[in-house]
């Protein structure tokens, strides 16, 4: 029999930990049945998770590649696959395949630079793997600023990790904001784009954006108003995907396939593409 | 020794207000009917979307029977009149497509007619047993 490896056939993954992050976001820890990491990945890459009979969906890998023991996925409940994932119990097997997509250029374009991460809501998920990667190799990068906003305090993802670990790191500044005032919140209140403007960052750095489309749009404007060039700004896209390997034909923006040529795009590359994302 | 080993799978959609109670009564009176009949309780026979019938066949049913209140006795006044029209057209279409017409049936069975329920089921099961397995409206993927 001459049967090749088949990219569409997944591996089994076991959910060994479920963390409730916010009312609608949970973080799942996934390993293979023998307790190993399913595969190695780079920051920003994605994986296809599926529950047979329910469907398959693409999620960004939240954990850092430097974590050699397991992978984590922060997933917001918004469709049938995610709903099912949210209802599952510890020890449940799912299927996993990947890694897919082009990672952030952490070892090339980012290296030696100061970094500014801007995230909104569950948009922190793909950035968390980059942030933790950069924290792990702290000496390779300059200053790290993290602006993170969500609807309310309860909706802030990884709050504990952010406050207890990231904020205490040397040369890492964390700026949190929520949309509306709230009791027991003494931090900043307001939308992310405005906050970015207020913070008036130097433009000697690379900005990495992720969040809802509307947030990305206005933050991009804000950054450009601060003098950032589109070449300094990276973001990730999300479109409907089925195969993950650039064949099923639906996640394209112009000639680029998000699953293969993305999901990470530099904003100047992105503005070359037709406005269909 | 029995020659015909075939045991049909029958799906019976039974109206909550009549036939389902009729089935209960049949049970209480110890009137037997084959265990191959799987009863699905519906609030009214008109709850049975034609899709349900097709789906039952897909999932392996050899016969589908819908039981409701006698015309005029519907708990909701007119539900079974609609059932009657819908199923007439559906059965006629299935017949037109070459699906054996004996595989589908509608019977009106009241809550008091335990005996009728049992005899209807016995009759239906024996007809389907004679007819054999449902081959024309099966989904091979659903076979074990």
């Amino acid at each position: 029999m001459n049967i090749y490896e088949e990219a569409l056939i997944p591996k089994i993954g076991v959910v060994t930990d479920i963390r409730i992050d916010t009312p609608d976001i949970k973080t799942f820890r996934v390993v293979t049945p023998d307790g190993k990491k399913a595969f190695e990945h780079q920051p920003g890459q994605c994986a296809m998770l599926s529950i047979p009979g329910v469907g398959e969906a693409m999620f960004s890998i939240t954990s850092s590649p430097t974590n050699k023991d397991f992978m984590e996925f922060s997933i917001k409940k918004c469709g049938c696959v995610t709903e099912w994932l949210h209802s599952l119990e510890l020890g449940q097997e799912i299927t996993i395949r990947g890694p897919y997509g082009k990672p952030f250029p952490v070892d090339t374009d980012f290296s030696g630079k100061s970094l500014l991460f801007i995230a909104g809501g569950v948009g922190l998920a793909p950035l968390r793997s980059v942030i933790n990667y950069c924290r792990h190799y702290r000496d390779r990068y300059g200053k790290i600023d993290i602006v993170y906003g969500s609807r309310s305090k309860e909706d802030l993802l990884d709050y504990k990790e952010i406050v207890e670990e990231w904020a205490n790191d040397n040369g890492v500044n964390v700026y949190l904001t929520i949309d509306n005032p709230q009791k027991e919140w003494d931090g900043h209140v307001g939308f992310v784009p405005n906050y970015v403007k207020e913070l008036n960052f130097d433009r000697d750095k690379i900005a990495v954006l992720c969040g809802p489309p509307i947030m990305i749009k206005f933050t991009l404007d804000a950054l450009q108003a601060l003098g950032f060039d589109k070449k300094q700004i990276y973001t990730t896209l999300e479109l409907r995907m089925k195969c993950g390997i650039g064949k099923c034909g639906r996640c394209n923006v112009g000639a680029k396939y998000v699953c293969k040529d993305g999901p990470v795009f530099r904003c100047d590359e992105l503005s070359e593409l037709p406005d269909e994302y | 020794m029995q020659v015909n080993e075939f045991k049909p799978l029958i799906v019976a959609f039974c109206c909550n207000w009549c036939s389902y109670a009729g089935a209960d009564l049949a049970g209480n009176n110890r009137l037997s009917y084959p265990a191959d009949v799987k009863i699905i309780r519906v609030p009214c026979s008109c709850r049975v979307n034609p899709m349900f019938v097709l789906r039952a066949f897909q999932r392996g049913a050899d016969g589908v029977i819908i039981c409701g209140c006698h015309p005029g006795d519907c708990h909701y006044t007119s539900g079974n009149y609609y059932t009657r029209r819908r199923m007439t057209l559906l059965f006629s279409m299935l017949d037109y497509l070459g699906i054996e017409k004996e595989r589908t049936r509608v019977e009106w069975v009241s809550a008091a007619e335990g005996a009728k329920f049992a005899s209807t089921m016995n009759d239906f099961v024996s007809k389907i047993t004679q007819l054999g397995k449902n081959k024309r409206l099966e989904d091979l993927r659903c076979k074990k």
Partner: protein
Amino acid sequence: MVKFSCEKIDLVFAEIAKTAALYIPSNDKNNKAVFTKWQKGTKLCDSHNTQIGPKDLFFPQTEDLMAFKASNKKIEIIDTRKESEDFVIFGVRACDVKSLEILDRVFLSEPRDSYYAMRREHGIIISLACTRPSEACFCTTFGIAPSEPGADISVWKINNEFFWQANTKRGEELLLKIEHFTTPAEPSEVEGEKQRISVLMKRLPLANLSTNGFGKGKTNELFEREEWAKLSEACLGCGTCTFVCPTCQCYDIKDFNTGNGVIRYRCWDSCMYSDFTKMAHGNNRNTRKERFRQRFMHKLVYFPENNNGLFGCVGCGRCISKCPVSMNIVKVMKKLGGNV
């Protein structure tokens, strides 16, 4: 090159069918040509081309990818792939031969699609030069020569004789199998026919259609053109054009719960369908115009962009004759390319 008289074709088919499944264009009961598995009595038809290309012999409309069994919290993945049987397709026209090259670019690029690759490895293609192109043919627009159909074996039918020319090792092996029916022939014997076809192609109504204005690097120029709105106005949003197209390869992956397990299968999908790009929180191609544009931009711009200028259309003309509202790639090209 070898030749044999047309009367022998059934014998040749019988010989080939001894060792492999053979598919030939034959008329169905509605008198429409379809690739039919040959058995004694299956007659080769002389229609210009089949209703649907040979695409589904390599990329079937529906195929199972794998199966799952789940119990408690455990999942078992069952690899249901089977080695494909050897098969031969006879009578593939030049456009359809080219369409397989286009499908190869998608399915055989890394990571290669093993389902497609397996069938590709086991399938031998015998092409057939066109003798009576249809008014809807425009393969020459994409540089395809119907007189040189290519593939494993090229075949010409001239008067009462078939001429078979092996182009690959697999083709040569096949010719050896039918050796006792054939006599050697000279390539010069088909020259006249090739000439005749080339001249004929120039007389076709769409012969002057050009790809000017399309291809690599034209994305931004064409994307915002206002003509898309008018062009897509009549489109019904059905999938006819994509399903009869020999190069359309978009697919969907779906799970079917059988009641005692799950089958994950894939099936043809169409970018014309409203839910093609729909996801839990939105759809980036919400209107018919956007979906219509996607199909033609993909064939005429995006595909060449990713494949060194190779267009994703082979000019077979099927969408022209099959579209319920007669809107097709030719009308799009004429409108946007400016070659009226």
